[in-house]
């Protein structure tokens, strides 16, 4: 075997904090061979992104490499002059980032942003660089590349922007491509396309890839070798086949266990028998439209939700799955009267939700509460946790004021927080704990329906599992009904009783969980299921 292209030796990265220098990566060694794909896997805070940034020489100002070497083509990159490093960055080593929506400069055309790299590193003239940029856009399968080169990032979809990022990173045919969670922000079908593209281009250009991810399914489908990181240290490494079939460390095992298995276990379908009651929530022909363009008073309407109907039984969970833009969140928010519906009927607990006005509507809000996606931005940073949970009771509850604080303490215990933590501010909690606060807030008015809008999507897989367990326990204990909005089929499969698959504003498939997952009727559902990365491809089945 030839010498490795890149080797990281005993790397230690420290960040300056108020408490002094704190190591975020410690004693990390790894190597990358020409043409191979190495995956670094771990949860947020494991140091995997910091490692990538250190290789690029792009650590934030408060960070520094405290010990170790990063050897690239016989040179230690940690000792290099900035000018020498800049000749490698974007030229020999390209990088793509997690957020395609914000990683491109909004005020320059995509063609210019690619051509710039070629002008800078390869001294190409303006016309030649532009022509090459168009070719690159074509190579990453942007339709009508010549025309699209002159468009701005905001005129492109997330998947297209990530393709542009890939074109930019590969423009100078680098020896190494570092991809930091390149598809985490994208829909699952788009993710599959991006991975296909990366595989193909890497093979064609013989580029070695470092793929950073939290998803073992992605590792199984993309990587040759894998390094598992936890809290800044390497816990395990090896070839993908070895590691997935024979994980040594408990953490690796839990990561593998968190990958969804979309082949359903057989459950007895006793649920069919119990349907005598009127459903708690009944939605009929719900339609939501938004004005998109207003030109001299003329309006064009965009139909986000196109006359959909579904029911949710009391104590059950209906999951609405779909990709971004499918209308799933809009539909749920229309049920809660947080966006206005143009037509249809929503009956919750025998109340017609869509005709309520004024004070009656305000009071009805107590009966339907929402848990939002981002626990970092959905809690008011200026309010203490206890006040956040108490606020809905102050506004809506019929609980006497004197009992509310006791109720807050009770809710904190129910969601697995200490009542003493009531006095802390949101930033003093972790992401998972914040989502527990959101859940306590949602429970505070004793609603019969809780809408979980991508409630676990922003969390690490292991925290995600804990929150899902909490939601299930609460459902059992309090007889809660969930409308569960998610793009993550693995999560949906763990949570729901029934599934509605949405696509472009319509429900394309609707049925029990087993029916939808085991024998999807529609092509769209089948594609969606097939696009979910799984570890199946590398699992060794013992010979019979």
């Amino acid at each position, binding site marked *: 075997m030839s010498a490795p292209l890149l080797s990281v030796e005993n790397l230690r990265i420290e960040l300056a904090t108020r408490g002094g220098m704190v190591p975020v990566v410690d004693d990390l060694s790894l190597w990358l061979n020409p043409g191979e794909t190495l995956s670094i896997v771990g949860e947020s805070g494991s140091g995997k992104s910091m490692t990538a940034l250190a290789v690029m020489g792009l650590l934030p100002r408060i960070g520094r490499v405290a010990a170790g070497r990063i050897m690239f083509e016989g040179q230690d990159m940690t000792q290099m002059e900035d000018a020498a490093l800049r000749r490698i960055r974007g030229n020999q080593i390209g990088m793509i980032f997690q957020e395609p929506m914000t990683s491109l*400069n909004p005020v320059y055309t995509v063609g210019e942003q690619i051509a710039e790299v070629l002008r800078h590193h390869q001294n190409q003239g303006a016309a030649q660089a532009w022509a090459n940029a168009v070719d690159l856009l074509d190579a990453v399968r942007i339709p009508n590349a010549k025309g699209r080169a002159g468009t701005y990032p905001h005129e492109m979809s997330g998947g297209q922007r990530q393709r542009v990022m890939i074109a930019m990173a590969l423009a100078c045919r680098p020896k190494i491509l570092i991809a930091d969670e390149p598809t985490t922000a994208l829909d699952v079908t788009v993710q599959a396309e991006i991975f296909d593209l990366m595989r193909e281009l890497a093979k064609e250009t013989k580029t070695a890839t470092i793929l950073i991810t939290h998803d073992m399914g992605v590792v199984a489908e993309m990587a040759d070798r894998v390094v598992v990181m936890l809290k800044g240290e390497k816990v395990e490494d090896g070839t993908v086949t070895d590691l997935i079939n024979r994980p040594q460390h408990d953490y690796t095992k839990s990561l593998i266990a968190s990958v969804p298995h979309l082949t359903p276990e057989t459950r007895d379908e006793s649920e069919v028998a119990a349907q005598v009651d009127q459903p708690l929530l009944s939605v009929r022909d719900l339609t939501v439209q938004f004005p998109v363009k207003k030109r001299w008073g003329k309006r064009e309407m965009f139909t986000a939700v196109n006359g959909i109907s579904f029911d949710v039984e009391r104590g059950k969970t209906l999951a609405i799955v779909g990709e971004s833009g499918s209308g799933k969140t809009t539909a749920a928010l229309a049920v809660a009267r947080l966006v206005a519906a143009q037509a249809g009927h929503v009956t919750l607990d025998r109340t017609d939700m869509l005709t309520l006005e004024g004070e009656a509507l305000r009071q009805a809000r107590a009966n339907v509460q929402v848990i939002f996606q981002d626990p970092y931005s959905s809690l008011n940073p200026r309010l203490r946790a206890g006040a956040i949970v108490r606020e809905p009771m102050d506004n809506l509850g019929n609980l006497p004021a004197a009992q509310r604080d006791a109720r807050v303490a009770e809710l904190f215990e129910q969601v697995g927080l200490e009542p003493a933590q009531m006095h802390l501010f949101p930033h003093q909690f972790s992401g998972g704990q914040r989502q527990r606060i959101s859940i306590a807030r949602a429970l505070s008015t004793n609603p019969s329906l809780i809408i979980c809008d991508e409630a676990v999507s922003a969390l690490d897989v292991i925290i995600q599992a804990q929150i899902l367990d909490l939601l299930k326990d609460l459902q059992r204990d309090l007889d809660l009904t969930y409308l569960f909005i998610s793009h993550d089929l693995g999560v949906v499969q763990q949570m729901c009783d029934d599934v509605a698959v949405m696509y472009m504003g319509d429900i394309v498939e609707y049925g029990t969980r087993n029916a939808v997952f085991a024998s999807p009727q529609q092509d769209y559902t089948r594609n969606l299921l097939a696009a979910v990365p799984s570890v199946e491809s590398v699992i060794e089945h013992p010979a019979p």
Partner: protein
Amino acid sequence: MGFLVVLAQRTLYGLLLLLAVLVLNFTMINLAPGDVVDTIAADMGGASAELVAQIRAEYGLDQPVIVQLGNYVWRVFQFDLGQSYFYNRPVTEMIFERLPATLLLVFSAQIFALVVGILLGVFAAQRPNGILSHIVTLFALFGYAAPVFWTGILLLIAFSLKIPLFPVAGMRDVTVEGFLPQALSVAHHLVLPMLTLGSIFIALYSRLCRASMLEVLGSDYVRTAKAKGLSPRDVTMKHALKNALPPVVTLAGLQFSAVISGAVLVETVFSWPGLGQLALTSILARDTPTILGILFFSALVVIVGNLLTDLVLRLIDPRVRGKA
């Protein structure tokens, strides 16, 4: 939406706004006690009630306010701002004599403040906690806090009297001839008033630009630019600055009215022959048509300034172009 459509739309809004300003100004001036006839009578050393009434009738001031307003608006739409009571000349003529001087001062001070403010802001954002950054902030705040006439007088003493680099007053040297020498002479006279007026706004623009740059420098696309291997100068001046500009340009647009009111003081200090001096004398003389005319043109300059701001923003940020 097309560029011309937006331009037409904004121009229409501007005209409506101008009409509102016209009505409002007229009403407010007439709410204030006293008129030009009181001043004339005072100058004459007193006058009988009959004479006062006669003069009022002559100027049309005996008619109901609403009729006066109607007449005024109608005349303005015919580009006639009336006759000055005090100078006894057409107001339009007097304003057009002086408007170029004020426009020159206002726009050059605004551009000077923007260029210097933005550069200082960019510089300060490089090392936000460095000693130089603090010095920049202190210096800028000093310009903001100091009264404009005081700054002006100080500059006059320093650079006209002690070190005679610049002329003390006026707008041009009447002894020079030919276009280019005259233009140079005007530029020479312009330096101190422009510095004085601009110094107020440098602080505002540099503070905002610094904050805006700091935010942009932490953004993902700046990280992308660094990952491309671009030089620090390209990262800052090409990728970061263009994204940091919109808030600064927006503020500059909003500050146009403040620049014009600042100009009134600066013109007085430097004897700059602009609208400011005319405004002062006509206010003292209660010369209503002249005051109204000046207010009208000030409003016009503000509206045009804001229109320019909008257009510049559309040039900078393609995302604005998509919206109405």
